[in-house]
């Protein structure tokens, strides 16, 4: 079997989309649309589609594994992931049950990405204290690793349940596991923790010059030596719109990406995005907005500069019209990914 050196994915939070006439879709329509988009992505040979988990009006996906199960039935090869599963406000046992179910239904195409996410509404919703985020994550990621071993669980948690000789079902087939990675922002500690657990890291680079994150990449490599762990493929996740008309792509971005960033900003204390900053993000920063060639050049440049093997493009940010979402996916699969592979020197297949 050849192992791919590069992996290209699509990420979405299930942003409520708009029909081509501009009227908003319902949440239900958006969910069905996202399943269609996964089908399209699979046909185009895109490696992965990953879904976020949110509990608010702008996004349709609160239960990603259910959507991924539906996708499993209409796709053949594409990996079905989350980006991210907020493990801190979830029960690792239930997460395991959902993913091992998905493992069965998708023939092992599932992937989980653990992280904090952009919003924090899952904490009050599920009755967890947000201020315990770190402690919850620390304990639950350890529990998750224990669950993946597939043996009967003996667990004496402080913030989680106590389990004695408990097997969690459905069990994974012998020798198989749930591919797990960790999403990080700018917290050095998160990178170190991921290395400690020997999990691949995906860095969310959603603003500023991507190479600003180079010190974090260096930290990842240094940490693997520090803890004597193998190097795992590093990835990045960023927003993009890929249309044949550059100007159109930029205006779609200004309308929808801005709206989305301003919403996150309310939670994170960021000021609303200015046009000047938006244009900077397209020219030099973290937005992959423009024609297939522009976007491919930018992805290749940043993957090279940062030693990345995985790139996840967040599509449909802020909703967007159906044809804009689908054009982005089509351009990404048909033109951008092959071109990036070419620019990186070969398609990475051994």
């Amino acid at each position, binding site marked *: 079997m050849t192992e791919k050196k590069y992996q290209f994915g699509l990420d979405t939070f299930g942003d409520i989309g708009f029909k081509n006439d501009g009227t908003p879709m319902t949440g239900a329509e958006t969910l069905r649309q996202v399943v269609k988009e996964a089908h399209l992505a699979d046909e185009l040979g895109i490696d992965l589609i990953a879904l976020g988990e949110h509990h608010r009006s702008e996004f349709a996906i609160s239960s990603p594994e259910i959507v991924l199960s539906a996708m499993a039935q209409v796709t053949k090869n594409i990996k079905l992931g989350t980006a991210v599963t907020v493990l801190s406000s979830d029960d690792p046992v239930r997460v395991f049950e959902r993913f091992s179910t998905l493992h069965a239904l998708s023939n092992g195409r599932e992937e989980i990405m653990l992280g904090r996410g952009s919003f924090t509404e899952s904490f009050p919703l599920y009755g967890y204290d947000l201020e315990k985020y770190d402690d919850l994550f620390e304990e639950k990621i350890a529990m998750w690793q224990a669950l993946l071993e597939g043996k009967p669980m003996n667990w004496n948690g402080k913030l989680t349940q106590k389990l004695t000789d408990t097997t969690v079902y459905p069990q994974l087939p012998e020798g198989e596991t749930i591919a797990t990675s960790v999403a990080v922002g700018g917290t050095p500690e998160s990178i170190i923790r991921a290395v400690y657990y020997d999990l691949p890291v995906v860095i969310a680079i959603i603003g500023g010059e991507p190479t600003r994150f180079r010190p*974090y990449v260096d930290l990842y490599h240094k940490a693997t030596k520090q803890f004597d762990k193998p190097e795992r493929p590093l990835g990045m996740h960023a927003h993009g719109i890929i249309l044949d008309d550059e100007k159109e792509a930029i205006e779609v971005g200004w309308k929808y990406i801005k709206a989305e960033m301003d919403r996150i900003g309310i939670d994170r204390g960021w000021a609303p995005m200015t046009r000047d900053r938006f244009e900077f993000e397209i020219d030099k920063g973290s937005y992959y907005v423009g024609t297939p060639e522009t976007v491919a050049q930018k992805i290749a440049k940043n993957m090279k500069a940062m030693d990345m093997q995985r790139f996840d493009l967040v599509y449909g940010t802020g909703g967007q019209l159906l044809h804009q979402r689908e054009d982005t996916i089509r351009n990404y699969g048909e033109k951008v990914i092959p071109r990036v592979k070419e620019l990186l020197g070969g398609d990475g297949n051994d």
Partner: protein
Amino acid sequence: MTEPTIGIVGAGKLGSTLARLGIQAQLPILIGSRHKVEDLKWVIDTLAPGTITLTTDEVIERADVIILAIPLGHYLDLDPVKLAGKIVLDASNYWVEVDGTHNNISDFKRSSSEVVQDHLNNSLVAKAFNHMGYHDLEIEVDRHPDVRRAMAYATDHDEIRPTVEHVITAFGFDPLFLGPLRYGLLLEPGSPLFGEAIPRDEFQDKINTIYDSPYGQKIITERGEKIK
């Protein structure tokens, strides 16, 4: 002015970013957290090479200017005796995600940096470096080498203002004095000034219209008047 030694207490997102900016600006930077020096040193050597990693106590002892980059909820860990006589730039904010949904440290009548100053009763506290996100500290500095971003500060100690302004300038920002420490309330999360990485004139415009904002209105309701 001889370059003051900067000591950063807290080596997380903000602390490590400030260390990197400081080193880029060729300032002498010390940093410490509750981590053991051996556990923190290799991290800092990677993220902000050139910075000297020490214990928090050593940082406090050796630095002339101390930047607090720890969660506000941990301010009582700071020893007022060890910090006596030092200039302290308080960058900490009450952050619901970290400090909890119920704030019993500060409120609209007593801003968080006043609480810190009261605790560090023999230190010279200024509120500074708190209103810009750590990403923007780097992005905006790189992006506008021509027009510096305003970094607002507040302090009760006029005698430290030249040093505070020197440090803010050395880090690459345009210092903007708001007034005595109580004016720091205007920089706290929730305020329209919080999160801003804009030039001085735009920042000043936002200060001038602050009482038109819901946050400004809340200040008037809670304090019975504008900050005076």
